[in-house]
């Protein structure tokens, strides 16, 4: 019994002292989904922020990715949950419509200044005279290549344009006696990053524009789109330098050293670093024959929720300023390996010429960001397109036209409400 009393007394005292300190200090809550490196990086940022703002404490909560959206949606309207929240750029519309987040104040986050300071694709977060949210870090695509296989085949440098890509991929492809592919020159799979490569890179490189009308109208059923689809499906059908689904998934084939080249996002760097015996390099995505370069960028943003009011709002604004500062971006790059969202950090001598990050960061300068209505459904459309060609022998142009139609239905449905 005395033990219990001591415990109760202790609890009461600590509760009282906690109440005393929190009388002066504001506590704000920050939510993100659980990913080890992101949590570590955010812990560092919070430490730095609290040191600079002793009267504010930040409490970070993280959830498994699968529960994230549900929890956020349930908590904020109930007046619980985060003051500052992390969300995927593609979810912004939904969050705005559901009134879960509030605009960033234009005096602190001047849109003109942000337009000038951040990489251009961040402007997708702007609505008239204010920004809704801002990223700390962004991601882009690049070409990973297996240095050992390159040496073995006597290839000196990664391809710089699409013709070289096909040629080098041909040299890297190996088959067994029966003609089965045992090593692919380049991995393919619309399920992985290739649907971004197709939309924002290949279609644009062939002289087209994948969408018009602020990504509400599909526009790739054009000459450029047909050329892009023919190039993409041609890698397997015509040149035989790849096999979709080879070794189950593209990144697995590359990790196993059974693929010469692999297009993937900057988030893959961390897991490739852990593979023993794999020597790999990174190059910018191959340019079109006329030199056109393009890239796809995606990012997670931070926003202030509608729950934050009064002094918690003030504190949240300060926190947002801190996590979008140059110093924060450098920490995010060093800890998570995600790219800075501002050229002032990304394009420094060290970062832009970094062996691994460099090609990704340079790609940001000409990157586009697709505004998705339903990313997984829109990706499915392109996966189906390729499979109609490869499994059902449908002509490429017909498959492309059907895909454009199917994707338009998804967009129309989403924007109708």
């Amino acid at each position, binding site marked *: 019994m005395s033990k219990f009393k001591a415990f109760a007394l202790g609890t009461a005292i600590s509760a009282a002292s906690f109440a005393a300190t929190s009388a002066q200090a504001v506590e704000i809550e920050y939510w993100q989904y659980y990913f080890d490196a992101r949590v570590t990086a955010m812990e560092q940022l919070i430490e730095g922020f609290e040191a600079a703002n002793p009267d504010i404490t930040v409490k970070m909560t993280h959830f498994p990715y*699968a529960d994230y*959206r*549900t929890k956020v*949606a349930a908590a904020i309207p109930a007046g619980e949950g985060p003051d500052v929240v992390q969300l995927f750029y593609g979810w912004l519309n*939904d*969050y705005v*419509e*559901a*009134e*879960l987040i509030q605009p960033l104040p234009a005096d602190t986050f001047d849109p003109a200044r942000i337009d000038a300071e951040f990489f251009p694709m961040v402007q997708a977060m702007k609505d008239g005279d204010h920004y809704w949210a801002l990223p700390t870090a962004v991601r882009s695509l690049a070409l990973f290549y297996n240095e050992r296989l390159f040496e073995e085949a006597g290839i000196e440098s990664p391809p710089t344009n699409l013709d070289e890509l096909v040629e080098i991929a041909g040299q890297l492809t190996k088959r*067994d006696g*029966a003609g*089965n*592919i*045992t090593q692919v020159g380049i991995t393919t*799979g619309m*399920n992985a990053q290739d649907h971004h490569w197709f939309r924002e890179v290949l279609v644009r490189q062939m002289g087209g524009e994948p969408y018009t009308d602020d990504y509400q109208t599909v526009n790739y059923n054009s000459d450029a789109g047909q050329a892009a689809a023919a190039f993409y499906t041609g890698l397997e059908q015509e040149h035989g330098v790849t*096999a*979709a*689904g*080879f*070794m*189950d*998934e593209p990144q697995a084939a590359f990790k196993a050293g*059974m693929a010469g080249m692999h297009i993937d996002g900057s988030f893959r760097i961390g897991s490739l670093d852990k593979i023993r015996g794999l020597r790999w390099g990174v190059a910018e995505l191959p340019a079109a024959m006329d030199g056109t370069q393009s890239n796809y960028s995606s990012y997670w943003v931070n926003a202030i929720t509608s729950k934050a009011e009064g002094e918690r709002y003030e504190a949240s604004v300060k926190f947002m300023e801190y996590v979008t500062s140059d110093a924060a971006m450098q920490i995010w790059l060093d800890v998570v390996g995600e790219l800075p969202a501002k050229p002032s950090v990304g394009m420094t001598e060290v970062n832009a010429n970094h062996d691994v990050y460099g090609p990704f960061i340079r790609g940001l300068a000409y990157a586009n960001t697709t505004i998705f209505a*339903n990313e*997984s*459904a829109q990706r*499915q459309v392109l*996966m*189906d397109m390729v*499979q*109609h060609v490869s*499994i*059902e022998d449908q002509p490429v142009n017909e498959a492309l036209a059907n895909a454009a139609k199917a994707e338009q239905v998804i967009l129309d449905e989403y924007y109708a*409400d």
Partner: protein
Amino acid sequence: MNLRNTLTIRQKHILWAWGFLAIPVLFYVVIRFYPTGNAIVLSFQNWNLLSARTWAGADNYVKLWHDEVFWKVFKNTFVYLLLGTPFSLVISFLIAFHLDRVRFMHGFIRMMYFLPFMTSAVAMAWVWRWFYQPVPVGIFNNILATFGIPQINFLNSTTNALPAVLAPAIWAGLGFQVIIFMAGLRAIPTSYYEAARIDGVSGFTILTQITIPLLKPTIIFITVFSSIGFLRIFDHVFNMTTNNPGGPLNATKPLVLMIYDTAFNGFDMGYAAAQTVVLFTILLCVSLLQLYLLRDR
């Protein structure tokens, strides 16, 4: 004066019974009936998890009716049922029937059949997924390639994929059905068999006239149980086709996977709820139909 004293013993018994029953009843109402009712209401609404629910009338059902993917998925679901249930029933009966007569290492063999049932479906699906890969990964195609036979596209094919996904699902459920069948076989009184043998009846007649008729309750149970299982198939399909869930070209997509995709990738909860109501109705009808067909006359 006291309520307890005014009750008869019988009333007290009833009161006690309901007192104990209240817990499971409450449990069922809160975590089964309430969500079921809620899902039915939701199927007439639009909801993306974030904003408020809005009434949509029968829109979700109309959309379902005109959705090509839904009809493809609907068909797939029944293919799973119509292939899976008879196959697993016949195979498990044959195994149980013969295993019942084996004395040598009986327990060990029975354990070997039961092991897949205890294995996590996810782990099993991934192992089979790799078995099915083309060379250089997949064991089946590697064997074929060794003998110079052309590779078979197991999963990357609109015709082969569904049976390829179904096979491990049947195998996984086999152990359970074998055990149930064996229990059923043991429950048949041996005196019937003795009488038949004295009368000089053939083995086939014993099987069709004694064993199978007396196994009827067991067969009903397994049929209903495995039908519901195949109608709700999800984990095998999802894990064997995560690169393109339910693919290629929706060739393996069952209804549950479509519901999952609509709800948690598309965040179209109302439409997903409408699909769920359809699945619920199918499950109900199939179960009632089977109970009716296999009823005791």
